[in-house]
């Protein structure tokens, strides 16, 4: 394994307790990125939105920072790779101990595609519950904005958001159903002043305000065609089923082909 260690990158000196040494594989982010964090037990909605967000950030050319956990983290990392972007994962264990083991391949792909995995713990350190909140401060410090996709009120993602606020880093949150546990945390953040993400274009505009113009001019937008709820469409329509479905699919395709709004 090729690993490097050394002084932390300058971004981390924003912390009142910066790590003394940093271990990494692959590279370190050369500029401030955007963190995508959230619950490990995400819903299909969270997974979908996390992918959309990861893809948007990555194709704009900003580094995507996350924690390599299951759920929201994994979705964001996968989307980053799919968009040929740079993804960085900050671990709560040594860089040779990928947890969960199921994400080992994901970690290798991050390293191989210009991103990297980063840890303040020496190689061989096992994951432990108290190390995860500590690594969250590094995720926040490497970023210019933190996006919380789905989180319960007690989630670790809210710790990342609180650290971000202490450092003066912008927090964005994805709104969700008010009666769903995994949206309670993000909705709370929005009530307390976090920027709600209303869609892909809204996200891009917000990030450009925070980070300045995106390094990459987004080329042809990749699939924006999220799943349409055909059942809902049919419920509202009084026309024959076939016609309604045809209409919904056509407008969905048409909507995805429209040039981007910026």
């Amino acid at each position, binding site marked *: 394994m090729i690993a490097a260690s050394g002084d932390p990158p300058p971004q981390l000196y924003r912390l009142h307790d910066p790590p003394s040494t940093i271990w990494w594989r692959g590279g370190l982010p050369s500029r401030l990125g955007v963190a995508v964090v959230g619950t490990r037990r995400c819903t299909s909605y969270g997974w979908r939105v996390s992918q959309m967000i990861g893809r948007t950030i990555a194709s704009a050319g900003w580094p995507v920072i996350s924690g390599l956990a299951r759920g929201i983290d994994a979705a964001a990392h996968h989307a980053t790779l799919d968009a040929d972007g740079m993804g960085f994962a900050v671990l709560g264990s040594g860089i040779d101990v990928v947890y969960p083991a199921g994400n080992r391949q994901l970690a290798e792909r991050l390293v191989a595609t210009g991103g990297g995995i980063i840890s303040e713990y020496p190689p061989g350190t096992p994951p432990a519950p108290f190390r995860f909140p500590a690594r969250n401060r590094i995720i926040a410090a490497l970023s210019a904005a933190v996006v919380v996709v789905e989180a319960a009120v007690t989630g670790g993602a809210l710790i990342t958001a609180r650290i971000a606020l202490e450092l003066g880093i912008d927090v964005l949150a994805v709104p969700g159903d008010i009666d769903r546990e995994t949206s309670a945390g993000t909705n709370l953040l929005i009530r307390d002043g976090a920027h709600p993400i209303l869609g892909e274009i809204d996200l891009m505009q917000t990030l450009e305000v925070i980070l300045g113009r995106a390094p990459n001019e987004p080329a042809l937008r990749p699939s924006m*065609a999220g799943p349409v709820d055909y059942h809902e469409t049919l419920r509202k329509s009084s026309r024959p089923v076939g016609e309604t479905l*045809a209409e919904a699919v056509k407008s969905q395709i048409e909507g995805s082909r429209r040039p981007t709004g910026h």
Partner: protein
Amino acid sequence: MFAQTTSVAMVGVEARPVRIEVHVSRVKEAFTLVGLPDTSVREAKDRVRAAIVSSGHDFPRRRVTVNLSPADLPKAGTDYDLPIALGVLAAAGNVAAGLRVVAAGELSLDGTVRRTRTAIGAGLLSARKGWPCLVAERDASIATRVPGAVVYPVASLAEAAAVLAGTQPPRPAAPADEDAVADSAFDLAEVRGQPLARRALEIAAAGGHHLLMVGPPGSGKTMLARRLTSILPPLTDAEAVEVACLWAAAGRHRPFSHQPPFRAPHHSASMAAVVGGGLIHPSPGEVSLAHRGMLFLDELGEFPPHLLNALRQPLEEGRVTIARRGSTVTFPAESQVVAASNPCPCGFRGDRLRTCRCSASTLERYGRRLSGPFLDRFDLRIEVPTVESLALLGGPSEDSATVHRRVIAARAIQTERGIRNGRIGRPNLDKQPVSAAGRDLLVHAIQVGMLTARGVDRVRRVARTIADLAGQDAIAEDHIAEAIAFRVDI
């Protein structure tokens, strides 16, 4: 003295003649049976002896040798009792020798002829050879369904012997059983809400497409699937004979019917039970018993992966080849598969309100079970959501009879074209006229990632059926668009 009769063996779905040669010689009393009989055939000796005596004839007190020919063709079952008994009577001089009849039936000790599983084979052989066939009264209705078959129902060995001796005229075959009427217990009128699923069922029935339904427990997937049988077109005469042959080959009784078969193997069923198997000689499995009908796989995710993979060939090619030590046989398996699955083991993944309790690793394992290549066989893939309680209070929906009429009309168009849409292959698919706007829509759908290259053919097939349901020759943009809606990624 020598006599010969003919009976039938089912090899795959083919009816093969079995010659039964009986020789009676003057040496001391014995009764031997040769020609690869299995145990059930060997036991025929005792039944035949008792039945002959009960019928008022003498069993020859000499050496009786029975040979079932061809000797290398394995024979199983009790269908050879009647022809063996007739052969013995003929060889002993009680009945005219040189019997040009096909006979199949089990004998009871009092000489009564009982039903067999190979009645349809006896009918086929009768038609092919132009000989009459002697079968039990209950089997006559099945045998008469074969065009050209001459069927003599016989109640007892005594009657069979009398008919052959010409001392009693053959009775006309009893009029065929009425088809079991369409199962009125299941009607689409009972389905409330679910407009998407109802439409999918109609398209599936009209084009013979495989259908996959994914939804939480209690959303009505099983209820919907059962109702597909109420709108499937009836079998043609030739198809009904094919189905009867398969059931005979499996050694199963099924009343002769134009109603498409419905099979629903449980997910604990073995590979041999579902795909087909047999210890030494192949016998058809559920996928073949559902030939020309519907194979319902409930709880698809619970089926073992190797079983689902084994189903891929029959789903795609409509036949299944089974090799065993004794022989290799290809059975037709053009069944229409309807599968239902929970979105995850706990059932609530993707539910709007309830949270899924499955761990990530469980989900991953579940996802792997439903492998891509298997799911790809389904032209129609829909989500079935839980119906809101209020919708359940609504009035009755369209009934099966109405949908059935549309399905039959769409099927008629396909019959004229010569191929069912669910099985239409590449060259024929390319011949189907598609409007320019429809072609553009396909291209755009691929560009925006709504459709993969391998999904295109499936969408074109479904669009063909939608156009047929609309009675239109050319596939229009709207037909393509609607077909795309039925290709949800699961």
